Every structure is written in C-alpha cells, then in structure tokens.
C-alpha cells in the first residue's frame, strides 16, 4: 500500500485511494465512538459536552439488560452458523458434483437471492409465515392442523429462519470453494477402502475443508449477529437487538455517549466471538491438522 506512486508505477499503489475511502468513511466513524463515549449530554440544550466521564461505560457494563441483548445477537449468530453449516455441507458437495457447464448457472441461482432488497425479504417472510400465510394454508389444507400456527411469525423461529435464509449462500459459497479443492480421488479411495459416506465425510472431507468452514463461520456469525432488520420486523416482542437499542439511544433518546459505549462493546464482543467460533470450527473439524502438516 504505497501512498505515493514510485517509478515504475505499480498496481499496488491503487490500494491507497480505496484504503483512504474505507478508512475515513468506515473506520474513523466507528473509532469516533471511543471519543463520544466519554462525552456527556446536556439534556437541557440537547448538546454534547466534550468532557471526560466514564458514566456511559458504567451504564453499559453494569446493566444486565444490555448484556441480555448482546447475548441474544450472539445466539442469533451461533444458530445461523450451525444451521447454515448443516445445510451448507450437503449443498456444497452436491454443487461440486455438478457437471462443469452447470456450475456457472448454479452460482447465479445461489447468489441472486442475495440481491433482493432488505425490505423485500422481510415482506416475503410475512406472507409465507403469517396466520393466513402459505405454511399455515398448506398445513390446514392437508389437515395436519385445524388452527393456524401462531409461533411461525413474530417469534424467534421467524428470526432464525430469516437469518438462515439470508446467510446460507455465504456459508454454501465458502464450503463450495473448499470442497472443490479436495482431491476427489481421496474420497473415492476412502470409499473403495470400505468407508461409509458419513465416515468418509468425517475423516476426509471435514478436515480438508476446515479452513473453508472457519471462513464461512466467521462471515455468517458476523452477518447474522449484526443483523437488526429481520429480528426487529419478524421477531415480534422477542426481536430486540443491541442494534435497535443503539438506534433508540442515538435517535430518540439523544444519548450519544451511551449509544457509542454500547456500539463499541457490541463490536468488540462480536469480533471476539467470531474469531473464537471460527477457531473452534477449525479445531473441531480437524482442519488444523492438515494445515499444520503443510507448514511443517
């Protein structure tokens, strides 16, 4: 990342403007949380007082309600990781067995749902899960139930389903890329030597795709844990997240210092948990062993 082009011009110097934009437009604003978190607010004139106080940090760190909310997003992220991995592996294996000509189309089909707008997806789930929605209508038609199920919408179920839907393509993509790199002869050899498919998966595919699983875990956890819209609009009374709390503190309550302290706490906890979880995914999948061997 050279800041000034030296002779001869190198493509590497093109990183500078991009880094400057993201640095000034994303990193600096979030770093400002640190400054604003030690300010106080004069609620008579609704102005920020640039002084030094730890009051907002004390507020966030001593009240359980904030930590319950943070715990909820960790739970959202964790469940999304587990569900997308369970569906993502068979999906990635199926995708990798497609003929080469079909893979491009499969990629487009997998990624296009990511392009639907945020509000469109939430809206669609309400039509599918609502009291008169598709699922209830089908179940009633089949006489499985006589009354519409009410836990489908405005419930943790709806939140987790929406997060699973939003993040499945990311996990599937990470695992697909990893599975494609596995030498298929290794799987055939395992099968020829009498391994059942599940054993071949556990002993060959899982360790070799461990880094892909770790990358997918990191991505899905961060995305699902940081998602505010789906829990807020589909989760009903259970759908409060630290993000909506930060929004309320920032907008309605004009308590920027507490909003900043909570935002920084959330960012650090999410980042730490994402690293922890993806490390765990790497170790549990046995993915660390082949990695270590290739470095040794």
């Amino acid at each position: 990342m050279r800041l000034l082009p030296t002779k001869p011009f190198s493509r590497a110097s093109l990183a500078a403007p991009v880094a400057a934009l993201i640095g000034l437009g994303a990193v600096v604003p979030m770093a400002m949380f640190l400054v604003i978190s030690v300010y106080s607010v004069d609620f008579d004139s609704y102005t920020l007082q640039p002084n030094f106080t730890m009051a907002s940090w004390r507020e966030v760190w001593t009240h359980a309600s904030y930590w319950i909310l943070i715990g909820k997003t960790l739970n959202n992220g964790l469940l999304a990781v587990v569900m997308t991995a369970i569906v993502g592996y068979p999906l990635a294996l199926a995708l990798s067995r497609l003929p080469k000509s079909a893979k491009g189309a499969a990629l487009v089909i997998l990624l296009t749902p990511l392009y639907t707008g945020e509000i469109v997806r939430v809206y669609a789930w309400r039509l599918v899960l609502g009291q008169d929605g598709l699922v209830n209508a089908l179940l009633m038609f089949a006489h499985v139930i006589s009354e519409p199920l009410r836990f489908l919408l405005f419930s943790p179920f709806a939140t987790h389903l929406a997060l699973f839907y939003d993040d499945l393509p990311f996990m599937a993509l990470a695992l697909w890329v990893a599975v494609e790199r596995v030498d298929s002869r290794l799987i055939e050899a395992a099968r020829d030597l009498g391994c059942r498919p599940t054993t071949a998966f556990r002993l060959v595919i899982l360790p070799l795709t461990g880094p892909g699983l770790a990358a997918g875990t990191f991505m899905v956890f961060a995305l699902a844990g940081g998602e505010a819209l789906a829990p807020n609009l589909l989760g009903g009374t259970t759908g409060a997240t630290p993000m909506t709390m930060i929004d309320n503190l920032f907008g309605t309550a004009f308590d920027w210092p507490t909003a900043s302290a909570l935002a920084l706490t959330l960012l650090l906890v999410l980042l730490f948990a994402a690293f922890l979880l993806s490390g765990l995914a790497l170790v549990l999948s046995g993915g660390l062993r082949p990695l270590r061997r290739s470095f040794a």
Partner: protein
Amino acid sequence: MNASRNAILIAVGVFLYLPIAILAVFSFNASPLMAFPLSGFTWDWYRHLADNREFQAGFVTSFLIAQPVGVMSAGLGLMAALALTSSRLRWRLGFIALLLVPFLAPRTVLSIAQAMMISRLGLDRGPVVLIIAQTIVIIPFTAALLSSVLMRLDARLEEAARDLGATPWESFRLVVLPQIQSTLVAAYSIGVILSLGDLTIATFLSGRVQPLSLIVASQFLRQLSPDLNAIQVVMLALTAVIVAITEIYGWRRRRRRERLLEIA
C-alpha cells in the same frame, strides 16, 4: 448418487425462491387481503402503481442514486482488485482486513457511526453522503468478484505487452481491460442492485431524500397491502432483468473469445 444430489439442489432452490414466488403470486391476487386461498387474477395492483406519484418519485430517486453507486463501486472495486492481485502490495493482510470492515460491521452500527461523524463535522445528510456510504459497503463485493477474475488471467500477456514497450496504462487498457470487461459490467450491476435494495443505510443517511425502499418500509410498518406487493415485484423483476442482461452479455463475450481462440 445423482438422485440425492439433485434432491438437495432442488430443495435448496425451492427454499431460496419460494418467498419471492409467493410475493409475486399475491401481487396478482384479486383480493386485497393477503390470505390463502387465492381469489382470482387481477392486474389492478399494478394499475394502481401508475397513479402512485409517491412510489414513482421514490423509484426515480433510488434509480438516480444507484447509478453513481454502481459506477463507483465498480471503479473502486477494480482498483482494490488490481492492488490485491499485484505481487508488490505491502500490508496485504491489513488491506484485506480493511476491505472486510464495511462487509462485516453491523450495518446499523456503521451507519449510525457515519451519521454521528457527519453531524459532528457540521455536514448535511443527503444524496452525496448516501452514495458514498453505499459505495463503501458495496466495494467488498465488487473487489472480491473482480479479483477472482483477475487472478485467473494469464499474467504473461501483460508482461509481454510491457516488454514490448507498453506503458502500465496502455498494457492495462489494451490487454487487461478487454478480458475483464464483462466482469466490470457485472460489478456495476451488483452496485446498482445492492443500492436499490438498501434500506438500513438510507434510514440513517438519506436526509430529506426519500428512496423507494424508505417509502415502502414506512408503509409496510403500518400494514401489508397489495400495492406494496406490486412495487416489490417490479423491483424484483428489474433486479432479475439486470442479472439476466449481465449474464447474457458475459456469456456472449466468453463465447466470442473462445471462437477467436479456435480460429487462432
């Protein structure tokens, strides 16, 4: 083996497209109540759109914001990708981590941080701020897409051009650019599509400007209506058309190149 493979692919495909399909079905349903059983076919909700000035203004706003976002995310994504695929990039991991920040940071938190900074600087929220903020969030997507293609190019072609006396710019324009043209178009399309679909950033940074997603969201919070259905389906159809045009364009360019290679 193939049967179970296809079963998985079809099941996931249905799951991914089912909510979208239901949305489309209800937009043609005669009853204004969004409930099964369906009650007949109608174009009414689409006809209502023709009279809805608020939606139309919102659509124009969204469209005008999406254009610069598309161009800038393609251009800056290309710059990031060129740097990432250069062997002389220092602090490579640092640069990758930086690119991941806007992708991984909770969007609400990032937007609030940006809103705070704008206000501390005494600047106004509005279209310019919104365009920049959306571009920042979309760069990781376009950079990933473009570097995946740049990585697969034959580096010897560019080296040959340089050896024959081309300047870095000439070798880029004459050798690299023709090979990535369709990917650049795809990057622009992704920028436009993600900008049209954005709600979170617009909530905090659009100021007095009202993109369509904000208008839809504010009505949606009050109640579901078939008019909202119809406008969502129009946006989905637009997205599908952009994806289709981009894919066909890329496919035709690839085929032309293959044919040229056969002749050569």
